[in-house]
């Protein structure tokens, strides 16, 4: 049994150590601009984990993950401006998104919506939020000291502070380390959840809902929990994004963000946690580099790469690379267990 536990945590342990090394060495080895750029990747990695978990380990394909991302950003912005601190608003944003996901999930799962219908509902709800926030430009749309600002967005959102130093805004390097620590913690917690009894039932639901119900599990309740966890993580990422940008506008709810999240998961590998993070890093870095060239429209190049990626590597980047390593290892006479999710 111990060896099984060790196998389960081998890959996750490696990812955690890698994450800790990045947390320590990036601020030392890279300049300010690069640290800021990497902070953005960290936030987006947390965002992608929200979909990677509910889709890859619960079988819930949400086309509207940007809804939680945006809601987290707005709730954090309003709460932080009113409260003059960031720790409690961060927790409020996470809680609000979890509750919103639970309410939405209740109607979807207890209303027996599945597959494409569930995707359509999540997408439509996100677009409603986008439309709604866009129409809050008037002076009457004010919550305490925070004006929602409609299409102009909310400026001057407070930069995050450390919980034990509420009056002192974080430096960029500190912010990178703080966000990276959150990303590592969420990754480890999700990994533990996947390996727990709850996680195994969730995977069974992904595999076959009816069969799981026949074994005595309340499938709708499990799906509600999975979806709420995804909502909470998406909300946390949104709050971090708002604080990182010190600005949030309705485009955070846009279809572009939901689509990007799906693409990152698909490119990195559905059914893994580390793969979608690789997807974020690879595609965002590529997009950034292409954006610096003026030879050709970078969206055309990126789109072409994505088509080839889906056609040639349908499992995604990380699972393909992992399978390749396992194959080479076996050819050399080694034996291996299953890798990390």
């Amino acid at each position, binding site marked *: 049994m111990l060896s099984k536990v060790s196998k389960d945590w081998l890959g996750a342990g490696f990812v955690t150590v890698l994450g800790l090394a990045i947390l320590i060495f990036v601020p030392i080895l890279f300049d300010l601009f690069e640290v800021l750029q990497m902070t953005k990747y960290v936030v987006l990695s947390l965002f992608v984990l929200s979909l990677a978990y509910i889709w890859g380990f619960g079988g819930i394909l949400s086309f509207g993950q940007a809804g939680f991302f945006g809601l987290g950003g707005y709730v954090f912005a309003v709460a932080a401006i009113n409260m003059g601190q960031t720790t409690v608003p961060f927790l409020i944003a996470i809680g609000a998104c979890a509750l919103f996901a639970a309410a939405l999930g209740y109607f979807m799962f207890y209303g027996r919506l599945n597959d494409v219908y569930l995707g359509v509902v999540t997408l439509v709800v996100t677009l409603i939020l986008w439309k709604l926030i866009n129409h809050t430009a008037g002076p009457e749309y004010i919550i305490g000291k925070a004006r929602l600002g409609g299409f102009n967005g909310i400026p001057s959102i407070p930069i995050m502070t450390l919980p034990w130093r509420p009056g002192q805004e974080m430096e960029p390097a500190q912010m990178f380390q703080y966000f990276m620590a959150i990303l590592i913690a969420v990754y480890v917690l999700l990994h533990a959840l996947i390996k727990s*009894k709850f996680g*195994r*039932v969730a*995977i*069974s639901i992904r*595999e*076959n809902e*009816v*069969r*799981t*119900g*026949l*074994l*005595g*599990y*309340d*499938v709708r309740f499990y799906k509600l929990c999975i979806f709420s966890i995804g909502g909470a993580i998406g909300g946390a990422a949104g709050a971090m994004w708002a604080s990182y940008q010190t600005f949030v506008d309705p485009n955070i709810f846009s279809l572009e963000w939901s689509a990007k999240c799906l693409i990152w998961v698909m490119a990195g590998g559905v059914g893994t946690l580390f793969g979608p993070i690789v997807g974020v890093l690879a595609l965002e870095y590529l997009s950034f580099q292409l954006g610096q060239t003026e030879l050709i429209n970078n969206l055309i190049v990126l789109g072409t790469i994505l088509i080839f990626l889906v056609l040639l590597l349908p499992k995604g980047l990380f699972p393909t690379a992992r399978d390749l390593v396992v194959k080479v290892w076996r050819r050399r006479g080694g034996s291996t267990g299953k890798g990390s999710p």
Partner: protein
Amino acid sequence: MALLEIQDLKAAYGHVPILHKIDMHVEQGEFVGVLGHNGMGKTTLMRAIMGFVTTTGGNIKFQDKEIRRLPTYRRARMGMSLVPQGREIFPNLTVLENLTVGVLGKKGSLDRIDEMLEFFPRLSPLLDRRGGALSGGEQQILAIARCLCNHPSFILLDEPTEGVQPSIIHEISDVLKELQAKQNLTIVLVEQNLDFILGLASRVYTISRGVLDTEIPLENIKDSAMVAEYLGFGT
């Protein structure tokens, strides 16, 4: 008092009625067979008893409680279990993970898996193999073992011999006999394989065009003309 009592049960897929009149009872510890041709409603009956086909009338009583409106998972928690046609194991989970899901939330889960592996030693060397990589017979054994992991008191078996090699059919038959004898399990078996039913069941119902209300005496099952008559195909 019967463990399962069904009266005038009706079920439909949308607006299409499939089961018109089901009347049957099963006593504690009995092994009851249900015989019927393809398309007569056998699988729908199993699904209706477990609660994932819409029933439109009648009663289903289990342990003297009306369960027709209970969701599937509540019925499963009362001790009912179904091994569906086509196995429906989790193909991307390993054999061990398939069994583990079967006992989650139960005390002594690992002991129960060991117990199942003693009953089905064929599964022991396959624990790390994905369910989808097993043969049809091995998948059937896994489906039965996983169902038993949940400590059910009442099992519905939907055509367990379909597409399974004879040696494994014998193995399944022997284990079911042993389990029923040792654990006083109540089993309802839907089959087209007459020999399999004859070897196990103490009573056999026939179902024809969504109607089940007739028992066929065991001695008449080997007489194909009699069976055809019971199934509504007699001349």
